[in-house]
């Protein structure tokens, strides 16, 4: 069974899929967080958060949280699918988007919806597909060129830290004022 990851971007008005490629880039933090979940004990190494701080130790502390939550709510830019304007090449060591678009209606701001989750069975046949998706809109008054997409995960225990798990450079995707796009990370399981 293969577990593949794709990135898909759809224009909300036309329904046209503007980008659909295998995601290039899980980054180191995803491996570390998955390892942490498997280990269920203090992590000895450093896991770099989106602020560039090295986090270590008892990231799982028994308080009932987990460390890979992607369920960012409306307006939240530290968790869930996020977009940015930097086109620096992807690296396994990326820990943050180059230039994240903040939430809002100012210049180069994006309006973020909720990061949602759904599942499709047998579409295409022989697959099970898990989709993390988020609608974004541009109310800034001018066009914004998106160059990068990422997935930020939150570790919820006694403290909350945020980690970049995926970063993809998409090439320039223009979102004009008043337009909206649906960004999807698609985890496709093929038997």
């Amino acid at each position: 069974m293969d577990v593949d990851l794709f990135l898909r971007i759809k224009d909300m008005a036309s329904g046209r899929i503007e980008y659909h490629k295998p995601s290039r880039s899980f980054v180191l933090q995803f491996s570390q967080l998955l390892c942490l979940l498997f280990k269920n004990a203090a992590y000895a190494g450093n896991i770099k958060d989106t602020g560039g701080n090295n986090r270590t130790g008892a990231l799982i502390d028994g308080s009932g949280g987990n460390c890979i939550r992607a369920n960012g709510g409306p307006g939240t830019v530290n968790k869930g699918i996020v977009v940015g304007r930097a086109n620096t090449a992807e690296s396994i060591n990326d820990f943050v988007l180059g230039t994240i678009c903040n939430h809002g209606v100012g210049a180069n701001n994006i309006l973020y919806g909720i990061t949602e989750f759904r599942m499709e069975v047998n579409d295409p046949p022989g697959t099970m597909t898990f989709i993390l998706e988020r609608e974004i809109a541009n109310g800034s008054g001018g066009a914004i060129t998106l160059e990068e997409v990422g997935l930020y995960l939150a570790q919820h225990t006694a403290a909350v830290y945020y980690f970049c798990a995926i970063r993809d450079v998409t090439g320039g995707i223009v979102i004009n004022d008043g337009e909206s796009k649906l960004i999807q990370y698609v985890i496709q399981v093929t038997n």
Partner: protein
Amino acid sequence: MKIRLYLKIVDTKTGKVEVDRESHSWVIQFPQILCAHMASKYTDQIRDTGNTLRNYQTTAQAINVNAAATVITYGIVIGTGTTAEDATQYKLTTQIINGSGSGQAVHSAVTIVESSVVGTTAIFTVARTFTNNYATADLLVKEIGIYAQVSLSTTCYFMLARDLENITIVKAGGSKTITYTVTVDNTS
């Protein structure tokens, strides 16, 4: 880009690498649990190793495979079943239990080596050693799996991967170390 899993088996006494290949089979519970954790919810039920469908709950903190010695409910586990690999499987066909009797193996504690970067790939490993202390017969292993412990309304166990592989652990103290390597990479 894939989440890949590799299987390596080494004879503990001789150091000989007997198997070193990509694992054939994540099973469906792995992406289900992974996605449930990321979404912090899951609408479908997930089948545990006892064939009971479980509802995901936000109390699920870990996907714990870090089993102590003698524990066979989670960690790397072995068996004698030969049923073909399939992504819908939820348990080994015939699991080998811990012990020193006929058809048994002494299960060591699982060891996990934390993530590192090799080129454009991030990897971590999960390993466990199995010893055949039975004096008069070799132990024939046919299947290998990874079981995880997850805390839901009760403590549940889920199979994440299963591979068919023929290995012989020789009688009177023979042992093998089985290592699964989980990789994610930075290439399309």
